[in-house]
């Protein structure tokens, strides 16, 4: 019953952001997912991130494919246009939408079935095409809506709720994203909002293809002993490489960091990301080193989370297309139609 409206009344003392919006203005309809679903935590993090960034909700377009994760755009940013497209094909729809209007912010939401199985082709190509977007995979290793089949990100040897053991190799979307040239790559855990919210903020501010793999346990079908995507398992094996604080240009720099190495990354619009390094030997601006590090830690059984790679000076698809600044959907007839004189010249050249 996703069309049930939430009560509109809220506490008058709710904090407002620079636009005068409260957090409630960034909410959507009531979730119809299972109680305790990791995806709802991700929706909450999305709401918090856009509130923090002072972005008008209607300037965001949220697109998804099919599946539990793809239902979530209904549950946040209720004043944004949303597009629940077809299974595994959100990336192409988002690419087209982005070409039509470069001024909106594009948020793609997908799942591991949607992106790693049926949609892996489009997942790969949207990253290598450098579409300016935030692409979140809510990764639970399982098909929830169809009741518990393994997905392509399920670890080899992990156990399904009904006892079957997965015999196929898993696909690591983070490694794929790095390989294919995504210019912002992160992994997080739906249970770690403190890490996830700034990662989403940084991804929104990043120009280019930003990908976040969020491990998000399925309480109904993948939260049992033997699963490698359960709350318990991920908490035990989570190895965060850094902690992130995002500062947009207008913010005073107030972040306080204790000892440990600090790294600043300047964003394309002049803002900065401050990374507190946990692993001293990890450099998130070195793609090859990040890939090696991830391989090493995966072999050691760790799920590495944090900002894994970013290239702050990245270009996007509109740079490659050399499109005009005016959104293509706002060009007028005068911009678009060459007119009868030009056509007469063309006719003359064809005789």
């Amino acid at each position, binding site marked *: 019953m*996703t*069309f049930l409206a939430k009560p509109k009344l809220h506490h008058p003392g709710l904090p407002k952001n620079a636009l005068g919006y409260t957090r409630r203005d960034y909410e959507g309809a009531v979730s119809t997912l299972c109680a305790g679903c990791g995806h709802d935590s991700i929706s909450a993090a999305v709401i918090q991130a856009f509130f923090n960034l002072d972005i*008008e*909700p*209607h*300037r965001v*377009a949220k*697109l998804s494919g099919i599946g539990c994760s793809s239902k979530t*755009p*209904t549950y946040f940013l*209720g*004043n*944004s*246009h*949303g*597009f*629940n*497209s*077809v299974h595994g*094909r959100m*990336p*192409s*729809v*988002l*690419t*087209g*939408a*982005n*070409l*039509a*209007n470069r*001024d*909106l912010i594009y948020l793609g939401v997908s799942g591991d079935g949607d992106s790693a199985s049926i949609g892996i*082709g*489009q997942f790969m*190509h949207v990253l290598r*095409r450098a579409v300016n977007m935030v692409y979140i995979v809510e990764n639970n290793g399982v098909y929830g809506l169809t009741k518990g089949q393994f997905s392509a990100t399920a670890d080899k040897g992990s156990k399904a709720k009904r006892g079957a053991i997965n015999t196929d190799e898993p696909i690591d979307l983070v490694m794929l994203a790095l390989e294919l040239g995504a210019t912002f790559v992160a992994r997080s855990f739906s249970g770690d909002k403190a890490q996830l919210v700034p990662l989403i903020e940084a991804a929104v501010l990043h120009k280019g293809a930003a990908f976040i793999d969020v491990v998000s346990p399925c309480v109904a079908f993948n939260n049992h002993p033997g699963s490698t995507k359960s709350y318990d398992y991920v908490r035990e094996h989570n190895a965060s490489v850094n902690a992130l604080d995002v500062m947009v240009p207008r913010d005073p720099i107030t972040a306080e960091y204790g000892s440990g190495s600090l790294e600043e990354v300047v964003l394309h619009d002049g803002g900065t990301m401050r990374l507190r390094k946990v692993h001293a030997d990890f450099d998130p601006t070195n793609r090859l080193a990040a890939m090696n590090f991830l391989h090493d830690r995966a072999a050691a059984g760790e799920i590495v989370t944090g900002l894994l790679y970013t290239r702050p000076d990245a270009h996007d698809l*509109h740079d490659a*297309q*050399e*499109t*005009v*600044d005016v959104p*293509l*959907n*706002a*060009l007028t*007839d005068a*911009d*678009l*139609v*060459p*007119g*009868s004189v*030009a*056509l007469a010249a*063309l*006719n003359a050249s*064809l*005789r």
Partner: protein
Amino acid sequence: MARRTKEPIARINDFVVKFANVNGSGSASANALFARAILRMGVPVSARNIFPSNIQGLPTWYEVRVTAAGWRGRRGGVDLMVAMNPQTWDKDVGELEGGGYLFYDSTRELPATSFRSDVTVLGMPLTAICNAAYTDARQRQLFKNIIYLGALSALLAIDPAEIERLFAEQYRGKEALSDSNRKALALGRDYALANFACPLPMRVERADAVGNRIFIDGNNAAALGCVFGGATVCAWYPITPSSSLAEAFAKHCRKLRVDAATGRHKYAIVQAEDELASIGMVIGAAWNGARAFTATSGPGISLMQEFIGLAYFAEIPAVLFDIQRGSPSTGMPTRTQQADVLLCAYASHGDTKHPLLFPEDPTECFTMAALALDLADRLQTPIFVLSDLDIGMQDWLTAPLAWDDRRVLDRGKVMKAEELSAGKTFGRYLDADGDGIPYRTYPGTHATRGSYFTRGTTKDRYARYTEEGPAYVDNMQRLLHKFETAKSLVPAPVIEKADKPARAGVIWYGSTGAAMSESLAALAATGIHLDRMRIRSFPFADSVEAFIAAHEHVFVVEQNRDAQLRMLLVNECGIDPAKLISVLHYDGTPVTARFITQEIGEKAAHFNVTPLRKVAPLGAAD
């Protein structure tokens, strides 16, 4: 050389020349010059490349029908064969009409058994001439084509000045190239003048029958239609015979759609990873208010089915060019057919119907491309332009492209921020105007009003998810009503009466028209008079039903095996199938007037359309 047993063909401005070449040998440009030079002399031609699915090495043909009458179809048969490919020699020689001419490279002597006694043989040592004149291997190859063009100009009385002017235009700014081509042309011409009785009794004479018509292929014209129709996003995946449409769009945009001050583009073109992605991008772009299209062929439409259903049900504009080719499956990728009619009309699972446009030539490819972009926005649904290889990839002599500068692009029902602020009711799937077409908003329009969720699942009039039966039926009925509205927006059929009162009629669509007018003239000459209707779109206008109702029998001429348009007529208009008599041609070659005349002639006799009378195939008396 060979002894002639039949009088050589003697005809002015009415004959067929066929070039048998090897793919990748550079013959295409020389052959196109041949056709264009004749056009410049004011004599109409209809020209066709017949080529394999191959880049280099396989046989390829170019057929030029010189036709004072301006017929646009293939005639069938060949009067002069330029046999440059030993691989296909026997077949090529066999195709010649009795009394025809065989031009070939006589550098290597061929046994007498290789020739026919009823044709005039014109041997010219092309390779030897080339080898003597050029040392570079590539030059020898390329200029060989120009040398035979020179020889043909002498044999057929084509004014060499016209060819030289074409060189000058083609190589403007590259005078050295123009010069060397002129020399090669003269080399061939001089040899022919010295060694053959030039000109032949079958030749070209200057006329004034071309007028202001242009020589252009349908894909190029459709691409221009997309530029003029305001398309800004093109997403495509290469597939014969549609690729040249997207490539032509890119070429024209580079000239016509670049911001003069910044050099930046007022368009975006993405070569997608597959057809699924290309239609996805088109739908995403159109959802967001850009005019978008894709170009593909049958296999691509098969892949796009799921997305087409989404665009139909969620009501998102999209324009799809289907340049039909031989099918099913990979079929005959470089041959023509009209076999995707049903695939497109009912594309995707569930109850769906889509408007189709059937251009008959490149001129209509232009007008229908621009129209399709308007219709997609107006009707908020996928629009199919069903061209085919014969229109898409062949140069046609066709009416010049025209644009009315007063025309305003129709962006359909889009609610703006001011209207939303003023409190105008917005229901994404609400039939506010009673025509079945709802209003939409572009994403990002208004801070608090007009946003909605687009989905392929069932929704109510306000775009809210629902699985309630009545809401579903309400929406499906409105979609049907919208399709009814489309009837009045798509191009009406072109209906013409026969010269004499007729009991029977004939229906055709698309590239079949190239052969129809010639066939109708031939049939009339044998006493078979048919009223005619060229269908230009689906859904069918009421006048389509009325035309069929007004005749005892109606022939339906199509280029597919299963009579797909006939099926659509029977299905959509509730017509008695016995009334519609199929004439079907589907071997991958464009249908000829000879074929249609023969078929209708025989069937007309059977159905007692006119007094019994055997029809002789056109040209059989030659």
